[in-house]
Structures are given as structure tokens and as C-alpha cells.
């Protein structure tokens, strides 16, 4: 029996959690001697006040859609993939190798190849932890954390040895050929005559991310495999009883998850930097955890949560530019969102469950007494 109506579960509880996170964030801003309202207005103005701001907001949101989906699909199988950061880092390597391997004549040719490269490398980095979880029972949370650090070390090594062109001081790869430069939103919207700022790096990857969200929805709710993933996630013994192989589900889910995280590199490495630099992921893998939790692991929720975090990151950058509040404020907000929507979910949920249960019981009692009265 459901304890709460559906709308309360999908809307009310996440909104209250978000409100709590917002109130505490405001208190933090007050505590460091700044005005929360002023901070908010700087953020709104900087992130949503111009197509320039929107461009950056959407650029960051694209990142968080990929990583949010990656975390969410693993959540559906009851797997906690903290390795998005490392998988996306490796995805960057895959994208860079593809872009540098061939003198691509046109982005339309380079993009599918880069998608394969990014997804493949990201998936490969998720495969080993998944295999160890499925076959050897190694806890996937710990192994994915370890793989993050191994990925960082690997990329730093490769950037200094091999990927860096001879004679270059900065540790980054060579610039990708012209033919791999993705069309920006400015160019895409210009086709239909909508003016959009030229500066922000938002590009065609935004549509790739939205497509990925739709794809994940199709996979999870419209295919037998998605059904198996969700059934396995709800109850492993029940899944086993229904003939669902745990090894198969863990491997497939994590490979998809790692692949999605790897696709982030299309946006950052191919779309923005146009070469491989160190720390190309910029925390997006971790923010994906907050996005997946806030979006309740549903693609629609994730797209909305990704937009919110895109706004926060871009707004936070503007805030740091105009005031003395450092960008780390966003990490605090991210932490509070994870805390309230993830770890303290029950704290918000319990009072509502009690309230709705009491109300339903009262209604049932009233109905019973009403049914009895005419007969007497």
C-alpha cells in the first residue's frame, strides 16, 4: 500500500528538500557577511539575464545531463557509480584519440566516431569495477573511487608523455583539426534566424544529451532489458528468481553508465576545449550524483535538475566575479542538495508519510461511519 499520493512523492518531497538546501545556503551566505537576495540576483542576472549567460548555463547543463543519467541508470540497478569523474576523464582520452587520429574533413563525420570513442573508453573504465563487483564481490563504490584516482594519474602521465606535442610547455594534447569543431548553438540557431550569443561554448552536444535522456527513458521503461535492470535494482533475490542474471545486469548497466559519462567529453573536450587538457571533467562527474538524486533518477527530472545545476554553476561563476563570494559556494549547495535529497530523504519524507497515512485513515473511518449511518 502506498503511503503517499504520487504527486507528493514526485514533487512535494524533492521541492521541500530543495527548499531546505536553499535556506541553509542562504544562511551560509549570511554567515559569511553577504546578502543572500543580492547573491541570488547576481546569479539570476549572470546565468539567465542574457543569451550569453544562458549559453553557459546550457553548456554546463549538458555536462550534468550526461553524468546525471550515468549515475541514475546505475541507481536503477541499485549500483552507486561514484566513478563518473574517472569515466568521463577516460572518455576525454577516447574522444581526443579519435579526433587526433584522422584529419577529419567535417564534424558530421567526426562526431559519430568521437561518440563511439568517448563512450567506449568511458564504458571500459566502468567495466572493470563492474566485473569485480559481479564476479568477485568487490564493493563498486570503493573500486569506482579508486578508479577515479587511477584515471587522474593516467591522464596526467599521458598528457606529459605522448599526447603532448614536442616542444610544447603546457601539458595538453595538440589542438584538434578544424574538421572536428562542433557547431555551436549560435550557429545552429542562426539557421532559423534566432540571435544567440557567440561566446559561450554550448554546442550540438546539448541535443545529444537530450537524445541520451530520451534513450535512457526508452531503455528503462520500454525494453525488456530496462525492465530487468529495474527489477534487479528493486530486489536482487526476486530478480534472480525471475531468471535475471546478476552478472549480466551489473555489467551491462555499468557499461552503459560509464559510456554515458564518457559522452560528457563530446561537450567539454571536443565542443569546448578542442584539445585534451588536464581536469577536463571539472567535477561534473560528482555533480551528476546530486543531479540524479534530485531528478529522482528519471530522465525528465534529470534534465530539469541538470538545468538547475547549470544555472548554479554559471551563476556561481558570475557571483565570484562580481562579489567576494568564492565559486566554492556551489560545492556547498551541491553538498546540501545531495544531503537533503539523498541521505536525509527520510527526514523530509517521514512527516509527510505520517500526515498522509493519518489523513487516509481518517477518511476511511469517516467513510465507514457514513456507510453505517443509513442502515441504523
Amino acid at each position: 500500500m502506498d503511503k503517499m499520493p504520487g504527486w507528493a512523492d514526485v514533487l512535494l518531497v524533492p521541492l521541500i528538500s530543495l527548499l531546505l538546501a536553499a535556506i541553509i545556503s542562504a544562511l551560509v551566505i549570511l554567515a559569511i557577511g553577504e546578502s543572500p537576495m543580492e547573491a541570488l540576483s547576481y546569479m539570476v542576472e549572470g546565468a539567465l539575464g542574457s543569451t550569453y549567460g544562458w549559453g553557459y548555463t546550457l553548456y554546463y547543463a549538458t555536462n550534468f545531463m550526461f553524468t546525471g543519467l550515468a549515475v541514475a541508470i546505475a541507481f536503477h540497478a541499485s549500483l552507486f557509480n561514484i566513478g563518473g569523474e574517472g569515466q568521463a576523464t577516460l572518455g576525454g582520452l577516447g574522444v581526443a584519440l579519435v579526433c587526433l587520429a584522422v584529419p577529419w574533413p567535417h564534424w558530421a563525420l567526426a562526431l559519430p566516431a568521437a561518440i563511439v570513442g568517448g563512450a567506449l573508453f568511458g564504458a571500459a573504465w566502468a567495466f572493470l569495477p563492474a566485473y569485480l563487483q559481479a564476479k568477485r564481490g568487490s564493493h563498486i563504490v570503493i573500486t569506482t573511487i579508486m578508479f577515479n584516482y587511477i584515471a587522474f594519474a593516467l591522464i596526467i602521465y599521458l598528457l606529459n608523455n605522448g599526447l603532448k606535442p614536442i616542444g610544447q610547455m603546457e601539458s595538453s594534447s595538440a589542438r584538434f583539426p578544424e574538421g572536428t569543431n562542433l557547431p555551436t548553438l549560435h550557429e545552429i540557431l542562426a539557421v532559423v534566424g534566432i540571435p544567440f550569443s557567440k561566446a559561450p561554448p554550448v554546442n550540438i552536444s546539448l541535443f545529444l544529451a537530450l537524445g541520451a535522456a530520451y534513450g535512457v527513458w526508452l531503455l528503462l521503461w520500454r525494453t525488456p532489458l530496462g525492465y530487468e535492470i529495474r527489477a534487479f535494482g528493486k530486489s536482487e533475490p526476486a530478480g534472480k528468481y525471475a531468471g535475471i542474471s546478476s552478472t549480466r545486469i551489473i555489467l551491462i548497466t555499468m557499461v552503459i553508465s560509464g559510456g554515458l559519462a564518457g559522452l560528457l567529453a563530446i561537450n567539454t573536450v571536443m565542443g569546448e576545449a578542442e584539445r585534451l587538457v588536464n581536469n577536463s571533467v571539472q567535477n561534473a562527474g560528482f555533480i551528476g550524483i546530486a543531479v540524479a538524486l534530485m531528478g529522482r533518477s528519471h530522465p525528465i527530472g534529470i534534465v530539469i535538475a541538470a538545468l538547475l545545476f547549470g544555472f548554479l554553476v554559471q551563476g556561481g561563476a558570475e557571483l565570484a566575479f562580481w562579489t567576494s563570494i568564492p565559486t566554492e559556494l556551489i560545492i556547498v549547495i551541491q553538498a546540501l542538495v545531495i544531503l537533503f535529497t539523498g541521505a536525509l530523504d527520510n527526514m523530509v519524507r517521514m512527516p509527510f508519510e505520517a500526515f498522509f497515512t493519518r489523513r487516509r485513515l481518517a477518511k476511511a473511518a469517516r467513510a465507514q461511519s457514513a456507510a453505517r449511518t443509513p442502515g441504523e
Partner: protein
Amino acid sequence: MDYATLIQVLDSTIRLATPLLLACLAGLYSERAGIFDIGLEGKMLAAAFLSAAIAYVSGSVWLGLLAGIAASMFLSLIHGLASITFRGNQLISGVAINFLASGLTVLVAQSWFSQGGRTPSLTGEGRFTPWEWPFAEAILPVPVAGPLYSDLISGHTAIVYLALALVPISWYVLFRTRFGLRLRAVGENPAAVDTAGVSVVGLRFAAVAICGVLCGVAGAYLATSLQAGFVKEMTAGRGYIALAALIFAKWRPWYALYACLLFGLLQALALRFQSMDAVLASDLLFSFGIMLAAIVALIAAFMFAKGRGLSPLKVMAQTVAGLLIASLALRGLAAIGLGFTIPVEFMDALPYILTVVILAGFVGKAIPPRAGGEPYVKER
């Protein structure tokens, strides 16, 4: 490699292993009680900041230490509330705590000191001073034993000795007291503890609190002993290495010491040599082989004198043989022109790689406490 260099490397091994050891023991108490804690990193970071800030403002490192412990305890309380009281996901709570500390420390540091998210440098009473052991100066000229005593054993700060002392203390508390038995039981089978009339919630909160204190000390050590002040993200993944060491140690105090010393050694080597070629690596392996052989010989003599068997030393003897053979092999490779360089990045990643290997169960199986990560629900 000469003896002086070896002593230097071992000296910094101890310094670098201390925060790992404290955090590892912190995790040990928490995880033995069934509360997974990936928030070690965040608690250390918060403690490092507040200890440095208070030590700077008050000029007393001891007040700083207390403040550090308070900061870490506050985060522990959040973790306890989320994972014990509200039966939330312990892993997610740990992640949130890490981010909370990562963001808040910089935010507050910037607001208090306006130095780009760091505290001013600590001097004098604001830092822990090294303890010089008796006769350290006098013994120094004695060959071999002199530097060993004066530079390696003497001359660390109080927290280093505290961390080392906590290993036998933790072993005693966990395996020889009633509290320890109950704490371990609550991590294996909370229902049984509950049936015996002991509070599961109380025990778990106690474990989380101990974890908070130890992480607080670890963080304070980073900012007021190892370094002089707080720097943004100064824990640099140590909380995760401690977690790795905990798994490496299979949740046991003495093994935690060995694991932390090993990981501390890797950090010390990476710090001292950056990248290593085959000859240097061979030298190092040889030195450690000889050193370990000396320790084995000492223990063997001791056990022989007491009339006990020597079988427990088999593993150590095998390790010595392995080190020496590896050393010779590397030297041989270098001699025939197959020498190679071990990059510093590999040294940095080695603790994580070793942990994955251990977790994979190829070198002994690491089995966590059975009820770890599961919130306890009394009413069924």
C-alpha cells in the same frame, strides 16, 4: 642508496603515514560498527581548516586541535543522523559530507582571512613542536643506531606518537573489552545485540563519535604539524587512501598500521624521488629487503630465546626473499639494457591500484563487516 637517505625516507614515511593511520583507525571504529564512512576525507579537511584557523587566532595549537575535533564531530553528527536516525544511504551521506567540507572550508577561510581560501601561516605556539627524546643529540654520532634513534624514532610531534599508540589501544578496546565486543557485534549482527538489550543506536553513535574525534586529530595534524596552516583541498585524497588502507588491513588495527606505513612509504618515495629508474628501484628494494631481514632476525632471535616456534615469521621471510629477488631482477634488466623508468604518476596511483587488487580478492579476501552499510530497523 646511502643510509642517511634511507633514514630520511623512513622519517617522512612516518610523518606521512600518521594522518593516514588516524583516519584509517577512525574508519575502523565506524565500519566495525556497521557504518560505512566515505566522509573521512571531508572530516579531515574540516578539522584541518578549523584547527589552523583557531590556532592562528588564539595562538594555541591545543585550542586548534580541540576546534578541529569539534569540526569533525559536527560532520560526524550529520553522518550519524543521516545513517542511523533517519536510516539514509550511508554512502550518499559520506559523499555529501566530503563536498560540504570541501566547499565550506574555502568559503569560510575566504571570509575570515581573505587569502584565497587559506589560513595565514602558523608559527611558534600555533604549531606542534617535535619531541626530542633524551640523549638524541648525544647518540647521533654513533654509527647506524645514532641516526636511527635521533632522526627516526625521536623528533616527531606528539600526534605521531599518539597515532602509533592508538594502534595497540584500538586493538585492546575492540578485541578485549565488552564495549569492543558489542561494537563489533553491532557491525555483524545488530539484531542479536538488540535482543541482548543493548542499544544499537547508542553503540553506533558512539562509534561514529570516536570516528569523528580521530578524523579531527588527523586533520589537525595535517594543518598544524605536517604543514603550517590550511590550504584549500589539503587532504588531497588522504581520506580515500585511508579507506583503501582499511580494506587492505581487512578492518584490523595492527594490519592498519602496516598498510598505512606502506602507503606512507609510497608517498614518501614519490615525494623524494619523483620518477624512479630501474637502478634506483632496485637499490630501494634491496635496502628494504635488508632492513626487513634485520627485523626478522631480531624477532627470530627473540622468539628463539623464548622457546617459541618460528613459523609466524614465514611470511616475512618470504617477503624479504621476494624483495631481494625483485631487486636483483631489476638490476639485471638494467644491466642488459632493458631498464625502464617508473613515472611518479604510477607511484601516486599505486595505493589505489593495490586496493583494487586486494578488493578483487586475488591477494587474500577482504570481507567487510556483514551489516556494514545497512540501516538497522528495529520494528519488523
